[in-house]
């Protein structure tokens, strides 16, 4: 028996509303631990081309050879031998929601996922449950225009050449320890291809759910926006509350071809026993625009720094990041922008909150290569602490090797101000309401860049977390 949500010692607050889990035996669950054998078995199950198997095995060697990162958060408690690297609940990836097994459907119903698709708010929906994608669907007219939106495994079966052409080109297998791990044991994730000039006018969404205890979810997402195309992809994540920790280590690679415009929005609300160690990177070519909107609310530890490599003149990269750390949480999040070509521009806006003893860290890197003249960048990171025993740090690193650039940088760390609280309370607002209002105002610049539904959801999640913290 698994620990009921209400008794879980690692998640002191009971407000986490997605803490339930399904008590259904998985179809396939590899024994715990990581080895060449495990990697071979995953590759066998998926019946993959040989190049992928070799890539996985090589990546596992990279993973084993690399030390644990010593910066960022506390990773010492992760026991790589105590994790199931592959758990499959069902044997099919359905494109008709009715065919998805009932208990999985129920889970997603509780999370409100198919609802949004039914209401026409989304152009396509994907759902991953543990290791495998269980559902993918895309609006017919987009499919007719050649837009591909499917599970990465399925893409590898149906479009092997396209996957091979781009896979690991943005994030090499040995980029970092967790990217290596993902490359070795990856399963699931979304594959998107948007043909030249096609505009996917409303978002595609994928929903990631960890259900099994002690499991690792290693989805691999690859997005290719061809010339002059446009797409917005949104992902949401939740997990049940168990007494032991889970690992989520995804890799997301995005290629923004000339003139394309890609926006990738994440609302991460993992339960407080998930290590969320994710590598996300995009390359942007001539005049392309890449935007990461990254909301980190849940997890025990998140280490995630969405990156944009600006490869050709005119490319623009943007990262909007919100992190909120409550009790027992560490959000180590930020952004990385690399100006590798002249006349490229970037904006980083980060807002982090810490409350109830939580810790948030902004970690950013802005790099401008020698010769990348005429670059402009603006970095702004603000941290707000709600109480004395919470913690906030900012580590904005700048490596500027070119003189003819225009770089603006501003960082603030503040506590919810006594004067602001007094002002609002002097108008009759309770301390809790006043604090909420100040916090909402603080994150407003990012919230307003979200589509309405997500803005509402994000505000709701932040408020939920604050209710636990300020009572």
């Amino acid at each position, binding site marked *: 028996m698994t620990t009921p949500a209400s008794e879980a010692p690692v998640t002191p607050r009971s407000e986490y509303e997605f803490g339930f889990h399904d008590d259904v035996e998985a179809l396939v669950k590899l024994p715990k631990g990581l080895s060449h054998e495990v990697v071979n078995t995953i590759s066998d199950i998926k019946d993959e081309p040989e190049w992928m198997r070799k890539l996985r095995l090589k990546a596992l060697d990279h993973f084993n050879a690399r030390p644990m990162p010593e910066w960022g958060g506390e990773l010492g408690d992760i026991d790589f031998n105590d994790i199931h690297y592959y758990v499959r609940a069902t044997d099919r990836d359905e494109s008709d929601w009715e065919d998805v097994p009932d208990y999985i459907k129920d889970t997603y119903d509780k999370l409100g996922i198919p609802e949004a698709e039914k209401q026409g708010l989304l152009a396509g929906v994907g759902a991953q449950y543990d290791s495998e994608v269980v559902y993918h669907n895309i609006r017919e007219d987009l499919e007719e225009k050649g837009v591909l939106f499917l599970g990465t495994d399925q893409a590898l079966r149906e479009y092997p050449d396209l996957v091979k052409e781009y896979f690991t080109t943005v994030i090499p297998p040995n980029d970092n320890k967790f990217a290596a791990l993902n490359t070795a044991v990856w399963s699931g994730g979304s594959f998107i291809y948007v043909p030249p000039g096609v505009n996917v006018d409303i978002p595609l969404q994928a929903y990631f759910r960890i259900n099994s205890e002690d499991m690792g979810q290693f989805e691999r997402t690859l997005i290719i926006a061809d010339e002059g195309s446009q797409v917005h992809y949104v992902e949401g994540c939740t997990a049940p509350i168990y007494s032991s920790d889970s690992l989520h280590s995804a890799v997301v690679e995005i290629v923004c071809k000339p003139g394309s415009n890609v926006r990738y929005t994440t609302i991460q609300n993992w339960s407080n026993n998930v290590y969320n160690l994710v590598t996300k990177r995009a390359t942007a070519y001539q005049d392309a625009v890449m935007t990461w909107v990254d909301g980190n609310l849940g997890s025990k530890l998140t280490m995630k720094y969405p990156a944009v490599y600006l490869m050709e003149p005119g490319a623009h990269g943007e990262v909007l990041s919100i992190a909120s750390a409550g009790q027992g949480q560490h959000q180590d999040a930020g952004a990385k922008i690399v100006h590798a070509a002249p006349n490229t521009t970037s904006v980083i806006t980060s807002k982090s909150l810490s409350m109830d003893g939580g810790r948030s860290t902004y970690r950013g890197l802005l790099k401008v290569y020698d010769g990348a003249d005429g670059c402009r960048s603006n970095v702004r990171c603000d941290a707000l602490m709600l109480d004395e025993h919470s913690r906030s740090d900012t580590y904005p690193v700048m490596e500027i090797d070119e003189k003819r650039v225009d770089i603006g940088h501003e960082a603030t760390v503040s506590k919810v101000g006594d004067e602001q609280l007094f002002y*609002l309370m*002097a108008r*009759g*607002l309770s301390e809790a309401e006043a604090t909420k209002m100040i916090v*909402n*105002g603080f994150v407003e*610049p990012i919230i307003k860049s979200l589509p309405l539904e997500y803005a509402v959801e994000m505000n709701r999640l932040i408020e939920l977390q604050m209710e636990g913290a300020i009572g």
Partner: protein
Amino acid sequence: MTPPLFEIDALQVAVEDKQIVNGLSLTLRPGEVHAIMGPNGSGKSTLANSLMGHPRYTIHGGDIRLEGESVVELAPDERARLGLFLAFQYPTDIPGVSMINFLRRAMSARRGEEIPVREFRQVLNEILGRLQMDEQFVRRYVNDGFSGGEKKRAEILQLGLLEPKVAVMDETDSGLDIDALRIVSEGINTFHSDDNAILLITHYQRILRYVQPDHVHVLIDGRIVESGDASLAERLERDGYEPFMAPAKEEVLTS
């Protein structure tokens, strides 16, 4: 005589262990306007903030009563909901929070129930018009990037919306040009009725030409050293605070 609406009774206030207000007493009856005039640093803002319950100002003697009930133990929001109002000398900016959202929350808090949008809009637009403020003004963030005059008008806007029983106005006149001063004063006069009372804290006499005080008090070193009618303000205007500050002068001479 009508019962007092607001009483400050032998109030002593300290900031960071420094005694600023030294046993100050004042009684406001319904319909009255009292002016407190004092030089810079005499403790005007300290008094105003402590009346509203600012946590940095410690009250260590005396009492504050609204309609006969002591409020010194109450938090600022509780005082506000009972009908006490402070127009700030330096209103704080709250980036990201729109005026309109803030005003609606404040008004609902004061009423003790959610105010319907339609009614709120109507009252809001009426007062905005009266203060010659653009409707777009309330789309801006609370006091964020407001000019000095805009901040003061925004305080009067709140006064009008919240309809307190007692309004303490901390140097609402300072930093206003003559037109703005007139508009702000009209805002105060429109609010004023036989049922409420105003404590007008000011450094200069000029606002008293627009808002007629029933009583004028001179504040020096946290004490009321003289009280009188409107003519006291004229005397101050003519002679300055100097004649009232004799004790301080002596100290300088003897040191």
